[in-house]
């Protein structure tokens, strides 16, 4: 009884031990024949020579895994970038909007004031702008500003904003007064002009 249980429990171990014992015993028996011993070494050598093949197989597998990993990462990346863009779009839009709306407003004010003044009936024009010089000045300002299209104005403003940002980022020389852009120049010109015409009452700032 005991023997059979032991056999059952340890049969695997026993088999292994037996194999080992067999191999050692056969080894010793083979040891008697040097030729057999050398063949034994050859099989070991073969195992060693097999190793590079195994490596090649694993690197193939690695490549396969790597490809699959990249494939799934790409799938995820595509969805992620869309979701990320959606998540930050409103914030970015609001930033851009708030950065440009005042400049646009000032530029629009220049357009509106000069256009409306230029199209006033002659008799009234003389009451609003008392001298010929003033009226000529206005006409010139009107003509130069109305020749600038919205896309051009937008481009001028965009270039200005980008250059301002670059200066801020690189932290080099502080922006000079002339870097305010073409539109800022016209706005200043109009402000100076209006100051000399007491009849014109404009509110240059936006009410909060």
């Amino acid at each position, binding site marked *: 009884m005991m023997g059979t249980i032991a056999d059952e429990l340890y049969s695997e171990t026993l088999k292994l031990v037996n194999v080992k014992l067999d191999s050692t015993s056969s080894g010793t028996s083979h040891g008697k024949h040097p030729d057999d011993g050398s063949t034994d070494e050859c099989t070991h050598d073969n195992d060693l020579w097999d190793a590079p093949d195994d490596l090649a197989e694993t690197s193939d597998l690695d490549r396969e895994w790597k490809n*699959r990993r990249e494939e*799934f*990462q*790409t*799938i*995820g*990346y*595509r969805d*992620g*970038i*869309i*979701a*990320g*863009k*959606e*998540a*930050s*779009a*409103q*914030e*970015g*839009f*609001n*930033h*851009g*909007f*708030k950065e*440009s*709306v005042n400049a*646009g*407003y*000032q*530029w*629009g*004010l220049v*357009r*509106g004031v000069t*256009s*409306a*003044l230029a*199209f*006033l009936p002659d008799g*009234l024009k003389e009451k*609003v702008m008392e001298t010929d010089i003033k009226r000529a000045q206005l006409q010139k300002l009107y003509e130069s500003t*109305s020749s*600038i*299209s*919205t*896309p051009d*104005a*937008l*481009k001028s403003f*965009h270039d200005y*904003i980008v250059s301002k940002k670059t200066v801020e980022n690189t932290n080099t020389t502080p922006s000079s007064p002339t870097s305010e852009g073409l539109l800022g120049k016209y706005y200043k010109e109009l402000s100076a002009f209006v100051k000399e015409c007491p*009849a*014109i*009452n*404009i*509110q240059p700032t*936006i009410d909060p």
Partner: protein
Amino acid sequence: MGEDMFDSSVNLEQFHIKEGYDLGYKDGLVSGKDEAWQVGLQHGFRVGEELGFYKGCVDIWDSAIAIQPELFSPRVRKSIQTMENLIGRYPLMDPEDESAQDIMESLRLQFKRICVTLGVKLDYIGYPMSSSQDVAF
């Protein structure tokens, strides 16, 4: 056993998809913000320009009325007053306010009405006639 192996490979797929997603999301946040910033920059400038244009016109008309009240008919003066109120109500610093579009439409209508009555053509190259057109930098 086979099911477990399948599950774990699915989990690994999910993991790699998630890995890519997180990376994409991060990049998307940055690029999306920048792209939208450019769009916002354009939109804000256009909206500001149009509103400033109306404000400039209204200010000059008001200055003219102060000198010569009988210059404009009561109807035109009422329209100018309406425009002034609309400009004051415009949510210029809140691009997400949905009332903006309606106010702008009303402003355009009033402005056109005044221009027709006065017999003047007050607009500029790029003045938004109906729908806004996009511009590439």
